[in-house]
């Protein structure tokens, strides 16, 4: 023991990680960024098939608060992302990452919100389906939101550009 006992958050994240790798969801890779800090994870999400994100692999970070799982983590893509529900700095805006208390998005029903019974794999699966189906009620990226509504062709073109960029092509 290094003197400090692991916190509830740390212990829970170790268990989540162990379970995650014993049964990883298709197209998703995730784990602690380094062995000394379970509160920061790196993940990699495959772009879902039959969407403009197809073929892409998008790196992101999950930053867990000290009181996890009472509060949700913050997810941020570390590559350029063009999506109605992703802020320009990469931060993901999705209901599962909002606690039922904080309320920037009234349309989200409580059942879709963050609760300690959610988990990393559920978050990442939700983000994957968010890539496939943007939610046009929450515009984290207004430009992308408009483009997605009004000019699909251009939207797809921009997204394909980011897909290539994320892969360093």
């Amino acid at each position: 023991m290094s003197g400090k006992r692991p916190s509830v958050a740390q212990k829970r994240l170790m268990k989540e990680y162990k379970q995650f790798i014993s049964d990883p969801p298709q197209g998703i890779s995730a784990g602690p960024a380094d062995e000394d800090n379970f509160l920061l994870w790196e993940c990699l999400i495959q772009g879902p098939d039959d969407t403009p994100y197809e073929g892409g692999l998008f790196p992101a970070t999950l930053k867990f608060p000290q009181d996890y799982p009472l509060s949700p983590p913050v997810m941020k893509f570390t590559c350029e992302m063009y999506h109605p529900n992703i802020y320009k700095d990469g931060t993901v805006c999705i209901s599962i990452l909002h606690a039922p208390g904080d309320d920037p998005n009234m349309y989200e029903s409580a059942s879709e919100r963050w609760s300690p019974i959610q988990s990393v794999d559920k978050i990442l699966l939700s983000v994957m389906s968010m890539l496939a189906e943007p939610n046009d009620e929450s515009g984290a990226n207004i430009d992308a939101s408009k483009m997605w509504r009004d000019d699909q062709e251009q939207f797809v073109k921009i997204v394909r550009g980011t897909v290539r960029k994320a892969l360093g092509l």
Partner: protein
Amino acid sequence: MNSDIPDPSDWIDSKLSGLKDVDETLRCHICKEFFTAPMITGCGHTFCSLCIQRYLTNTSQRCPTCMQEQQISQLRKNVTVETLVEHFSAQRATILRVVKEAAKQPIPEVVEPPSSPDLDDGRRRSGRKRTRTNYTETLVSSDDIQVECPVCQAMLPGAAINRHLDNNCNDTGANGGNWLGTKKKTKPLRKIQRVNQASESVANVRRKLQDEGLSTSGSKQTLFRRYDEWVTLWNANVDNKTPRSKSDIKDDLRRWETTVVANENAQPVKMTIKNIDDRQWVQKHKEDYDYLIEQARKSILKKKQEKEKEQQQQQEGHQKAVDRREDNEPDMKRSETEGYQVVS
């Protein structure tokens, strides 16, 4: 995988993989540990006393599982689950070892998890033969038989009679009671009241903290939060079958202040958990990562080459526009025959 972190996935690949569900059911959805002082909500969901009280105090007044409204006062002890956890976790390591060893043996065998002696009350299922050892195990040892003291006529265990006589029939020394079972009762711990930040004065909260022997330093906000957490920790401890000492709970409070409060405004701490984590995990993760990137690159390049070939072969004027539905509903489905074109 690392056995330092017992969790339901330990049962996967074992001969009793169904026990994964049992293991999972006996764990709290908040901390993923086996329930400690399990409490059941009005809606029928069970959590550790500490976990659910913390959640209902700090986060939301709804059940984490079903989102129904929930108050701390509605929580009730889940005694059956508590006992179940006790028995299962006492046997878990043994069962796991037995099933893993059984998996290595070529001839499949029926594995009977060893039953603990106190569950063995003689009402065994028919068809299972008792062995000699079982008989001797279930026999009451003579030391447990109550005998009457020839001097004072008190009933006491056979094992204790000699000491009793040596002490001139006076047994109140060792464990604070006589053999007739009038053991000194420990005072039951009482739950304490939460304070309402809107109506309670800072001076009152400071006095309460002082009465409990807790630190009274910090801002108004800090004092209220400290007392609130103290109430949570203390009341959860009261729900415990074997409550811990007050100084243990004070340690918990100090730990909470150093990990949660102190870090709220500070840089994320680096906590080293060398004995629990496993370098291989991180290594494996990194390899997966690199592999996936490489695969994706290859597949995109391949698609691009195919695309270019295809384009050369194709006649002019081919439509590459993305399908749109008639009803204007946004749709990102590509057409059946072509993938998304990579923008160069």
